[in-house]
């Protein structure tokens, strides 16, 4: 285009603004064949199916967090231009959070991989050369085949960021038939505490759902309900209704946290507490409830195990939860530990009882501590004492979607041998007897090559080199693994270590059925469909995994008989046909799909309370204060006493199987590191962060810190350190150091610094020596038995740095 012409176009753009503003009309409808007003937009595939200015709306499901909200996407001439909530969908009812709103910037992100690539240079160089899908899949299949034929299948690591649903099942199937115990998710570093409390006390390894809409009281232990909580959208709707939709009635929400977070400021009451002492407070509240005879006697008697002292079949006497509470956690003692006054403890306990049904809950972050499992169990046990489990207005066990599993594909002999091996992360073995996976333990194990060497790693929705402490350790660990494959659509720190990148499609380009995070209790399936043609030469990872399995061949390939991922999904969808009391009662798959395409999903809204068999799948068939599963697992540890001593666990005997509290263990001495780090996940955080999405970067508060990594300080602390807002400071912890921008937040506790996670630099650079995002500052410490990563127990010092 000539220069003059270009200027004219700019001028016309200018005028167009005037037309729209003055006339108020949309631009649509005045386009000529040769459109001088057209935006200078790049070509996209799929425009052929559209007429000029033609728009179509598609229903689908969001994937920006695990909430599984239904969305409606407006597509004009093949370009997605708007995402709204789907009014039909029971989780969000037409609303949508900030992450969901910014999905378009994920779809049209300029840094996306345009097709499969192979590494072209040393690991971490970030140099790629295009490769064909067939070659890549063929080579990966061949390597996996070799590994398996050498009998080393157990050395294949599947790092899977999808916490539930069919995609997770597909990875799990692959792990089983291939023969590796190392299908590792990220939950030890996110909601691991809650998950394990449920697994041990309910026998159900899934986080709880809540009957928000008819509850009478909500007590949050560091629950970031209005921030990065996967049930946030649903809870925001509910909290709003709990406050304002019932004339004359308002449900109280109390937030307990050391940091005066957004959630704390929006709560009816905020209770300040010392870091990592939530468990002690929960036990103190329980003490008051039990001491005053206020617990739900009937529920405790009929539906719980281990409340009173008891004797087992062998005649051995065991301590009951009641005795533990009454003896060990009087309010005076709890007040000293937590810093919450005795008066407040007594009052909160009374309020909980007086406003039943009440919900006591923690989020993953609150139970993310070296005393995490005991903390999560203590908080959860409050619900049982109040009799608010499986009852209206209380905590309920999420009912899974009723789809049948795929036909069983049993492992062959080789696979069985691999599956029987100890997991590389040590979970389930004597290293971490109570863990259900411990992703942060992997780098050490990989680098040590013990108990065995890692042969290959697959990264699906995973970037541990960024989103876990010790990023550099991860980088080193990846360099020891002969084959690393990443499915990430965008470059990231872990992907830089990959030999192949097989880019996944974004959620607006693929067909999928997803299981939302538990929120309402009744079964919900969200439905996702492509709203635009795939922009690049990408493939959905479900398809690629099936193709890789076929390339491995033998029994592995046989277990994946489907041509496409979609066929595999549809096979299981069959079981949703003719389900009465569901949103779509369809006799044919095509009708079911049509309904789901409209509503963004399928659900079965009728919820029956008090389904004890669903709620308690423990050995006793009851809610277990005393977890027999924990007892069984600990009994299997050789020389438990020595192990406990070696790890500094103080608790002994029955108390280990009951809700209990251990002293937090801070990394770094208070003398050297005077501050405690409060690492938190803000509303813009999704798993691994959202640092690549401009819209989400720019909702940072304070605004001027958008795009920076910030450290938050109390005004008086800042004054003492001679730091002003916007200054650059160096934050040092025993784990690492980083330059950060100072933000002065009056709600910060003195002696504590707030660090929002996931806000690292973008684009990531291969040669970046400090891939931070906040995680690099955190000590890689965890619950010594359950493997829950701590986010609360790192100390830091902070010094002023000259502006550069």
């Amino acid at each position: 285009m000539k220069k003059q012409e270009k200027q004219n176009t700019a001028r016309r753009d200018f005028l167009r603004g005037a037309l729209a503003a003055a006339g108020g009309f949309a631009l649509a409808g005045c386009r000529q064949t040769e459109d001088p007003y057209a935006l200078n937009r790049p070509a996209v595939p799929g425009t052929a199916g559209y007429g000029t200015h033609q728009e179509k709306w598609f229903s689908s499901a969001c994937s920006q967090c695990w909430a599984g909200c239904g969305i409606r996407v407006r597509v004009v001439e093949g370009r997605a231009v708007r995402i709204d909530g789907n009014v039909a969908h029971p989780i969000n009812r037409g609303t949508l959070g900030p992450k969901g709103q910014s999905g378009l910037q994920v779809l049209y992100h300029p840094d996306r991989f345009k097709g499969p690539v192979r590494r072209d240079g040393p690991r971490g160089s970030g140099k790629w050369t295009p490769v064909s899908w067939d070659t890549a899949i063929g080579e990966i299949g061949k390597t996996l085949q070799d590994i398996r034929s050498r009998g080393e299948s157990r050395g294949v690591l599947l790092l899977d960021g999808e916490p539930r649903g069919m995609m997770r099942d597909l990875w799990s199937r692959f792990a089983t038939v291939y023969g590796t115990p190392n299908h590792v998710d990220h939950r030890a570093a996110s909601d691991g505490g809650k998950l394990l409390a449920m697994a041990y006390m309910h026998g159900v390894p899934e986080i709880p759902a809540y009957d928000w809409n008819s509850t009478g009281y909500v007590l949050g232990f560091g629950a970031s309900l209005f921030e990065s909580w996967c049930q946030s959208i649903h809870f925001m709707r509910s909290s709003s209704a709990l406050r304002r939709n019932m004339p004359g009635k308002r449900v109280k929400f109390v937030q307990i946290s050391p940091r005066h977070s957004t959630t704390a400021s929006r709560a009816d009451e905020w209770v300040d507490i010392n870091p990592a002492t939530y468990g002690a407070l929960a036990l103190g509240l329980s003490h008051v409830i039990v001491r005053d005879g206020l617990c739900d006697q009937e529920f405790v008697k009929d539906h719980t195990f281990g409340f009173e002292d008891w004797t087992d079949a062998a005649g051995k006497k065991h301590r009951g939860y009641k005795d533990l509470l009454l003896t060990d956690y009087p309010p005076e003692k709890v007040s000293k530990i937590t810093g919450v006054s005795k008066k407040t403890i007594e009052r909160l306990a009374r309020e909980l009882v007086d406003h039943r049904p009440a919900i006591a809950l923690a989020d993953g972050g609150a139970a993310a501590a070296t005393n995490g499992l005991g903390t999560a169990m203590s908080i959860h046990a409050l619900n049982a004492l109040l009799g608010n489990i499986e009852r209206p207005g209380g905590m309920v066990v999420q009912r899974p979607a009723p789809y049948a599993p795929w036909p069983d594909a049993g492992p062959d002999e080789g696979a069985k041998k691999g599956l029987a091996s100890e997991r590389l992360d040590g979970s389930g073995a004597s290293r971490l007897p109570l863990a259900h996976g411990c992703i942060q333990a992997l780098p050490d194990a990989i680098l040590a090559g013990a108990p065995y060497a890692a042969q290959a790693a697959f990264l699906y929705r995973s970037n541990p080199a960024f989103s876990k402490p010790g990023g550099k350790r991860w980088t080193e660990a990846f360099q020891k693994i002969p084959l690393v494959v990443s499915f990430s659509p965008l470059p990231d720190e872990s992907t830089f270590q990959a030999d192949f990148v097989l880019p996944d499609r974004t959620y607006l380009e693929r067909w999928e059925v997803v299981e939302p995070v538990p929120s309402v209790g009744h079964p919900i399936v969200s439905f996702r469909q492509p709203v635009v043609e795939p922009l690049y030469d990408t493939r959905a990872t479900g398809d690629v995994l099936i193709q890789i399995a076929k390339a491995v061949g033998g029994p592995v390939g046989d277990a994946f008989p489907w041509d496409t991922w979609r066929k595999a999904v549809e096979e299981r969808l069959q079981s949703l046909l003719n389900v009465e009391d569901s949103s779509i009662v369809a006799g044919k798959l095509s009708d079911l799909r049509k309904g789901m395409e409209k509503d963004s999903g399928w659900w079965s809204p009728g919820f029956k309370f008090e389904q004890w068999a669903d709620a308690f799948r423990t050995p006793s068939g009851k809610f277990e204060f005393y977890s027999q599963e924990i007892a069984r697992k600990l009994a299997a540890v050789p020389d438990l006493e020595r192990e406990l001593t070696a790890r500094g666990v103080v608790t002994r005997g029955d108390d280990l199987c009951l809700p209990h509290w251990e002293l937090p263990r801070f990394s770094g001495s208070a003398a050297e590191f005077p501050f405690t780090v409060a690492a938190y996940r803000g509303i813009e955080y999704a798993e691994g962060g959202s640092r690549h999405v401009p819209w989400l970067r720019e909702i940072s508060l304070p605004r001027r810190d958008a795009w920076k990594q910030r450290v938050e300080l109390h005004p008086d602390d800042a004054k003492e350190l001679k730091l002003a807002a916007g200054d650059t400071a160096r934050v040092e912890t025993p784990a690492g150091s980083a330059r950060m921008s100072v933000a002065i937040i009056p709600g910060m506790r003195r002696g504590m610094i707030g660090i929002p996670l996931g806000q690292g630099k973008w684009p990531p650079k291969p040669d970046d020596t400090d891939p931070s995002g906040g995680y690099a500052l955190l000590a890689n410490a965890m619950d010594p038995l359950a493997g829950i990563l701590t986010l609360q127990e790192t100390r830091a010092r902070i010094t002023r740095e000259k502006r550069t």
Partner: protein
Amino acid sequence: MNPTRRDVLKTVVAAVGAAALGAGEALAAEPAKKKRKWGMTIDLDRCTACQACVVACKSENNVPCAGPDQMPLDRGIYWMDMLAIHEGSHPEGRSQYLPTPCNHCENPPCVKVCPVGATFQSEEGIVGQIWARCIGCRYCTTACPYSRRYFNWSDPVWPEEMKNHLNPDVATRPKGVVEKCTFCHQRIRAVQEKAKVEGRELEDGDFRKLPACAQTCPAEAIMFGDMNDPDSTVSELGRSPRAFRLLEDLGTRPKVVFLREAKWKE
């Protein structure tokens, strides 16, 4: 069509509506052919400060991102912004978050100072900006007591691929002009056109969640509608004892009404 509703509109507006919205409203002069008067209510007791409204607005109205260079200079543009107000400090501190669109004042100071007539007030009460007429003098940004007007310090920049998600219903703005919230007037026009084609009268439900911010709000804190209709959601909420407007003593008469936050009481 609902005759009862129509009757209400015709007769009751003048009396009740005017009383609710303050005396001396011009609407009483035209009871038969009453104009719409667009307004918004924002319930701070519902709001959770999630900022979905902020992102929804940016997406709907093609508001450019400022980027790492411009943000520290406070050059970010937010037609819908989130103000964080902190009082006191830990452990006594409290924080308040206010979603703040343009107030679309009935007595807008910005309109008075514009030397070229680029800023105007529409018949339906929307304070608009004609970008082509704007000379970038920034008198209006100074006159606005709420800082709800933004100057484009540079041409809007999107990475090439991200141009695809621009909303075709809203033009982008060039360097050197002031821009602001329009109450999503493109959506208002669209729904009015559609109703005309369908031959039906618009109802409160058509507007309640019409602007992008109101539509997305998970807590349903933002409501939109006709303040001349005494039965509209915004009129009803506007009569709440919790209702207040920002800097009311300035006499700007904002049409964005906030509802005070409440706390649980025994």
